[in-house]
């Protein structure tokens, strides 16, 4: 009886261990005969976008919630991303120049932590296709789902998949990670159309356990 319990425990632990080791993109198949995709084709083009932004997550056992406005602007081929609270105070102001060189223009001292800046920077670089490879390194079908194609771009750490329906460049999802696991997932609702940014973008940090939800503000107010 004891022997049986011991073996069951061992099997359970082995399955647990193996499932932890399971690769994120195990069943991927390269789509052959397709062209290389330039990052330019997927890169969003915009003058000015304003989103309602909420950040929800957990720090230890404590839940946190933060809200504000996310302002994105292209000015003279430079891109700026500004997050401010509803009363106008700036939380952070990030920018990329024409060569995708990154700058922090302003950040609240409480948020001025390298790990946080790096995380947020990566999120926006994924969304805006900055500091990414100029062209794709492959197109794949994952788990046999032919409704979605995964266009892979190598990144300084790991890679990103831009998930599109076949025959279109409207982005449904962006996934960032490595062969072992997915780290960040950006879900676009509805999918991006052409070079536009989606109306709703949900940035899920699967390991860090927090989510940034963005909802486009269409009816901007005039004075």
């Amino acid at each position, binding site marked *: 009886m004891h022997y049986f319990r011991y073996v069951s425990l061992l099997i359970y632990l082995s399955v647990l261990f193996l499932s932890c080791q399971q690769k994120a993109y195990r069943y991927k198949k390269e789509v052959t005969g397709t062209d290389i995709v330039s990052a330019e084709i997927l890169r969003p083009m915009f003058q000015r976008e304003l989103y309602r932004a909420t950040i929800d997550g957990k720090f230890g056992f404590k839940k946190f919630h933060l809200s504000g*406005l996310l302002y994105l602007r292209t000015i003279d081929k430079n891109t700026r991303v500004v997050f401010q609270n*509803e009363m*106008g105070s700036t939380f952070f102001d990030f920018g990329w120049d024409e060569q995708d060189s990154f700058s922090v223009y*302003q950040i609240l*001292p409480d948020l001025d932590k390298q790990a946080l800046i790096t995380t947020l920077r990566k999120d926006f670089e994924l969304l805006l296709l900055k500091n990414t490879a100029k062209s794709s390194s492959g197109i794949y079908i994952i788990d046999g789902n032919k409704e979605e194609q995964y266009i892979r771009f190598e990144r300084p750490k790991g890679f990103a998949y831009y998930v599109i329906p076949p025959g279109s460049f409207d982005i449904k999802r962006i996934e960032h990670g490595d062969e072992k696991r997915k780290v960040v997932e950006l879900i676009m609702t509805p999918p991006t159309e052409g070079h536009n940014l989606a109306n709703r973008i949900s940035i899920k940090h699967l390991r860090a356990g927090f989510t940034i939800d963005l909802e486009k503000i269409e009816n901007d*107010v005039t004075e």
Partner: protein
Amino acid sequence: MPYRKRLRTICLLGYLCIALYASGQVPKGFSEMKNTAQLQSSLSNSAAHTQTITSDFTQVKHMKMLNDKVISKGKFHFKQQDKIRIEYTAPFQYLLIMNGGQIMVKDGEKTNKINTKNSKTMQSVNKVMMDCMKGTVLGNKDFNVRAYESKDQFLLSLIPITPAMKDLFSRIDVFVARSDNSVTKLVMTEKGGDFTDMNFVNKKINIVLADALFSVR
């Protein structure tokens, strides 16, 4: 004196002159009030006769480097002694209630309660908002306050002293109407030079406001 040392002295003197000029700059159309005791008593007197204030507001965030503005609108309510409700209605819904030492924010379905005792920043924000409404802003210890006057308005210029406030603002300007001593505009300037102004219009004084409007439960 060696050239480098002389250059450093000249630079330092130049810097001091600019700093003195900047700190003593009188806003255009205003003159500095040397004696603020009378203003303080006038503001307190008006506040004592003001039980409630209701107004619409337009908030404009001016982004200097980006040459752009973000505009929002809403409703403002104040009730003696220490209740404020700021409700943004366009282009997004957001509610902020300050009641005593408690702050409640509601955005969409999410409600968040903050006890200002746990945050010096929130304490200061709460206090400065209440002081503006209660006419006691000249005595706020978190700021150096300078008072200016024009034909129609008083301007109270608040320069933060405490680190918590210095992180958020480089200055807050409170514009007060001479006619009824009520706040007509708030201008909050950030360290980088961007600023947000809140203009209060359609003001109604002493109309009945239910306590439920300020509930933080």
